[in-house]
């Protein structure tokens, strides 16, 4: 292809610039401006407002809010449950992805579709679905209503697809002959998985886990009904924030929000580091 009539960009870092990529012109510059404006109006500015509002009562106000018993309990509960659900679903999600990619059995396609359900389902519906099964009139006699287990199960439900869909493409790309090579060199199945496969899917697992955790931290709709939102017992952070908003305590809600944002950011960055580290060795 030698039709490069467009000016190739010459701005410094050119090693990754494919041929034909453009510099911003009038039209595209305008488009970029509009896009940035929209993002600012919609996302950036409001989030900044949250950070700013959390400091309305100063640092002491912030700390007071965040350390008050009900709030602290809700944050702790949310972080721990989200972490627990993420750990379980990282393992189970990998297992499910493995079975989807490597196994052939009747109903496999169906299984794949079912895995998408939690992602496509409105969160409130997920909550009602869980109530139907684990609520007070549970047909199985398993009543989880108003317990912490309910929250855990709800988070398992909504975060299931993330790790599965993150790991699946990587598993599909893995060449089978690598495993056969391992076998021919004397490695047992466990060793093959641990030393040959795991390093290759670890970055994807980390990515899926990050999304899973962030989702779990912020989950509201699926959790609020079945947990009963009992303060200091089964109230998650998002429910607490909603309560604060309805009580017009916007500063308090912002404080909690800021804590959650920081935790989410920290975990995402942390897992991003894990992802890059494990990917670099490959």
């Amino acid at each position, binding site marked *: *292809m030698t*039709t*490069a*009539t467009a000016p190739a960009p010459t701005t410094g870092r050119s090693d990754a*610039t494919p041929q*034909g*990529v453009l510099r*911003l012109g009038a*039209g*595209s510059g305008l*488009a*970029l401006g509009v*896009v940035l404006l929209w*993002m600012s109006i*919609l*996302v*950036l500015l*409001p*989030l900044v*407002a949250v950070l700013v509002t959390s400091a309305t009562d100063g640092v002491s106000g912030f700390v007071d809010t965040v350390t008050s018993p009900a709030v602290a309990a809700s944050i702790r509960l949310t972080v721990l449950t989200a972490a627990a659900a993420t750990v379980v679903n990282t393992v*189970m999600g990998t297992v*499910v992805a493995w*079975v*989807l990619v490597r*196994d052939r059995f009747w109903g496999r396609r169906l299984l794949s*579709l079912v895995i998408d*359900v939690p992602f*496509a389902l*409105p969160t*409130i*519906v997920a909550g*009602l*679905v869980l109530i*139907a*099964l684990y609520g007070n009139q549970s047909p199985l006699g398993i009543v989880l209503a108003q317990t912490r287990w309910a929250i855990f199960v709800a988070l*398992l*439900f909504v975060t299931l697809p993330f790790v599965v*869909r993150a790991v699946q*493409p990587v598993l599909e790309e893995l060449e*089978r002959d690598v495993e*056969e090579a391992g*076998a021919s060199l004397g490695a047992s*199945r466990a060793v093959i998985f641990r030393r040959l496969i795991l390093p290759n899917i670890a970055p*994807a697992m980390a*990515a899926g886990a*990050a*999304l899973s955790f962030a989702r779990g931290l*912020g989950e509201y709709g699926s959790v609020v009904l079945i947990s009963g939102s009992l303060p200091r017992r089964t109230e998650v952070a*998002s429910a607490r*924030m*909603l309560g604060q*908003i309805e009580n017009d305590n916007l500063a308090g809600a*912002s404080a909690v*929000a800021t804590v959650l944002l920081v935790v989410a950011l920290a975990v*995402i960055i942390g*897992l*991003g*580091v894990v*992802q*890059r580290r494990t990917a670099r060795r490959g």
Partner: protein
Amino acid sequence: MAELTRPTALGAPPAAGQPQGPGASPGRGASGPTRWVLRLVAVVYVLVLVVLPLVVMVGRTFEDGLAAFVESVTSPEAVAAVTLSLQVAVQAVVVNTVFGVAVALLITRYRFRGRGVLNALIDLPVSVSPVIAGLALILVYGRNGWFGGALETLGVQVIYSVPGIVLATCFVSLPLVVRELVPVLDEIGLEQEQAGRALGANAWQRLWRLTLPSVRWALAYGVVLSLARALGEFGAVRVVAGNVLGSTQTMPLLAAQRYADLDESGAYAISFVMVAIAILCILVVALLRPRDHR
């Protein structure tokens, strides 16, 4: 923000599987008992976690008979909720699609300072709790918000009314179209557009005749994802709409309301409608999937 490999949200990614047949060893996945154990564990886990609750809920929905269900779903408040949900969803999807296409093109076809930052920021809404999203919007557009005063003088009410719901829905579904388009745009590369430019097509023509048609399935995919998300958003809308009956109640809000009012079967009824829509979306996406890669 660390750059995450973002999974294709709905459905398995349309990667070409490995061909079967001579050469595919049976020791591929796992041998004998291990394979059965894994298969069993995976299937049982998904079954118990996802299918069982769904089945029970569907059973509950029709507990009182089909007539009760129909009545519940066709009551004025239900109809209003469905209508509102659809209106909001369509608006949000349109906005997100335009935004998504623009951003995807900017990220893949241009180079500018801050491109990487933009790329990372796109993912932001997905990591944020919907309640926080609602809160954030209230802080800026609510009556006492940063722009609240200005908006009020203009006679525009955002929070506690439909525009607010649309905004909140846009917020939570912001990345969905972009993330579907970017990998596909990267994959098809720039050659087509270069050829188009050499043949004299201007930017607009290239967009309509070359670029968009080649990503149409990924675009459709992203639109359906967006739609599913928009219809189902609860937390952010709950904050922003204030839960006032009738005028600003979407389907999810109605379901929550009915449950709070101890009308469980009513809540299940409207939920069933949402489940049906969600499953429809999944099926459409599953059908679109094979066409995603040429």
